[in-house]
């Protein structure tokens, strides 16, 4: 794998710059998270999305504000791209009550009703039937909305993937199945866990139309997701997209990353989503190194503000421990 020839930026440049900004936001945010993990400010599991930013950014930008997102435990990127304030996400990682899940969820369970962000689901495949149900509710209430379900390629080994695909297809529900194929389910390579490694073939078995997309190219991701969302919104039923991507970091902060070659990681880094888009914009005369530095420093400012917000947050009183187990009666 070598650095590919530069593909033209086929979306409006302003939009491409938005994509770039969001990818840098995710990158810088997560790099800071890794630091803070080392400082013991963030605990529990922390799954970084670094390397995969093009998928969340391209796909989320292709959705409408009233569409729904169901994500996995590796969802910081989707949450940031969706517009959940970075401070609320960072505070959640700190376990503060100003967090987007009041400190009850942590890194793996980011939620936001305002942007219809339905988690942060940490059972592999667990979000899929939820997405089918959200889509069913839209269908039954005659709303033209799309539910986007993000999941890794590891999830296709779960029975619930097949059950959910079947139901969505059988009932022609408006679900975008966005599979982020980063080749490894924790430490197990796809080829070591699946007899059929062509994921689109699995989806096709349910008569669900499919697309295979370069998940390192945010523009390609956006264009594919937009087309898919439009078709779903028009009533065509569910769609399956395989985004081929790669995570540069280990599975979680606990992972010594012994199951893959360093050379493989380096090869994928040549296709890095941020410099890929940066170089293309530069080649088209739409961007400069100086503009990147400005963007980067703005983003760093946002991330530091998020950290300050989290640092300044408060701990929920222990007296509130059992709140929100059940819905409180209306006052």
């Amino acid at each position, binding site marked *: 794998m070598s650095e590919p020839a530069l593909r033209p930026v086929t979306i409006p440049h302003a939009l491409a710059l938005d994509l770039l900004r969001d990818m840098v936001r995710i990158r810088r945010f997560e790099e800071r998270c890794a630091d803070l993990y080392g400082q013991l400010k963030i605990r529990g599991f922390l799954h970084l999305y670094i390397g995969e930013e093009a998928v969340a950014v391209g796909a989320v930008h292709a959705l409408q504000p009233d569409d*729904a997102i169901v994500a996995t435990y590796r969802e910081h990127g989707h949450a940031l791209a969706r517009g959940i304030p970075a401070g609320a996400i960072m505070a959640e990682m700190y376990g503060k009550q100003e*967090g*987007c*899940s*009041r*400190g*009850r*969820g942590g890194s793996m*369970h980011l*939620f*936001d*009703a305002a942007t219809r962000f*339905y*988690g*942060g*689901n940490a*059972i592999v495949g*667990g979000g*899929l*039937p*939820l*997405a*089918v*149900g*959200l*889509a*069913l*509710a*839209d269908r*039954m*209430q005659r709303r033209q909305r799309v539910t986007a379900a993000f999941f890794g390629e590891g999830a296709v080994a779960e*029975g*619930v993937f097949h*059950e*959910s695909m*079947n*139901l969505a297809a*059988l009932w022609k529900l408006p679900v975008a199945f966005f599979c982020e194929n980063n080749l490894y389910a924790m430490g197990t390579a796809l080829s070591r866990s699946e007899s059929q490694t062509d994921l689109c073939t699995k989806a096709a078995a349910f008569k669900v139309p499919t697309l295979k997309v370069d998940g390192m190219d945010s523009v390609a991701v956006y264009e594919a997701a937009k087309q898919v969302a439009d078709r779903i919104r028009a009533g065509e039923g569910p769609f399956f997209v395989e985004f081929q991507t790669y995570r540069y970091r280990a599975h979680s902060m606990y992972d010594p990353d012994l199951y893959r070659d360093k050379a493989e990681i380096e090869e994928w880094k040549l296709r890095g989503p941020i410099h890929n888009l940066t170089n293309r914009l530069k080649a088209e005369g739409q961007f400069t190194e100086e503009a990147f530095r400005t963007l980067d420093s703005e983003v760093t400012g946002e991330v530091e503000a998020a950290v300050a917000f989290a640092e300044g947050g408060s701990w929920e009183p222990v007296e509130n421990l*059992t*709140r*929100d*187990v*059940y*819905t409180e009666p209306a006052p």
Partner: protein
Amino acid sequence: MKMTYREAMRQALHDALATDPRVFLMGEDVGKYGGSFAVSKGFLDEFGPERIRDTPLSELAFVGTGIGAALGGMRPIVEIMTVNFSLLALDQIVNTAAAYRHMSGGQFSVPVVIRMVTGAGRQLAAQHSHSLENWYAHVPGIKVIAPATIDDARGMLKPALEDPDPVIVFEHALLYNVEGELGDEWRSADIRSARIMRPGRDVTICAYGGTVGKALDAARQLAAEGIEAEVIDLRVLRPLDGAAIIGSVRKTHRAVLVDEGWRTGSLAAEVSARIMEQAFYELDAPVARVCSEEVPMPYAKHLEDAAMPQVPKIVAAARQTLGRN
């Protein structure tokens, strides 16, 4: 008015579907087949396939879909054929429905109702007969109810649907054909309180679901011997109505707990622990339990009968708390 438990449940479902357009029924064979216990017979014609949804044999996905639809503003009633099959959906019930409100910091409620058949007595052996109510009652975030009477079959669905949180409804398979009088009590049914089915002064017998009738039969036999048992139908297994149980034990000073679940780790064990914690000095005898024997439910009729709580065992346990053998 006399009716069967099946008819009472059917009327409750019919009311819900007829009065709230957000309500729909989903599960295996609820539509064209008419429900595996014929509870929803005729609904498909009346309410149409959009609201009476036959599903594939995909418990995990259709329960999860019900949860998602609840999040999306619907009021789904998901039917699972038996509690044994519900284990295929346990992930969605425990990891999603029960946890969702809490792990989202209170942003989302999950108003789904999940009905399932439970219990033994039909010679269906070890994969269709168990009583796992307690597994669900163990989990914070869900509510668990077990309508045992005609009134409750008719009345408890409405408050369950009005509840903003997930509610699991256990319907004992042997109850569907039981006939009884539908009174007026169903109109005020709640999903918070236990019910005293028969007042008594000598011993408290707690039961739920399929064992309530057996507890009442036992109480009648005991009455013939001059022992007045108070029978409590727990009705709501989570959250338990502790006040009703403790109040009764303070009066009778003795308790027999009847539970079709296995004895080890049973709901009866939880009730027993609460009595010990809250009414230890009120007790005149050790708390007694009549539970299922520790065996996967056998097929042969005589063995199945022997494995389940039965009236003579309840009577004997009650006598023992009074020092009579």
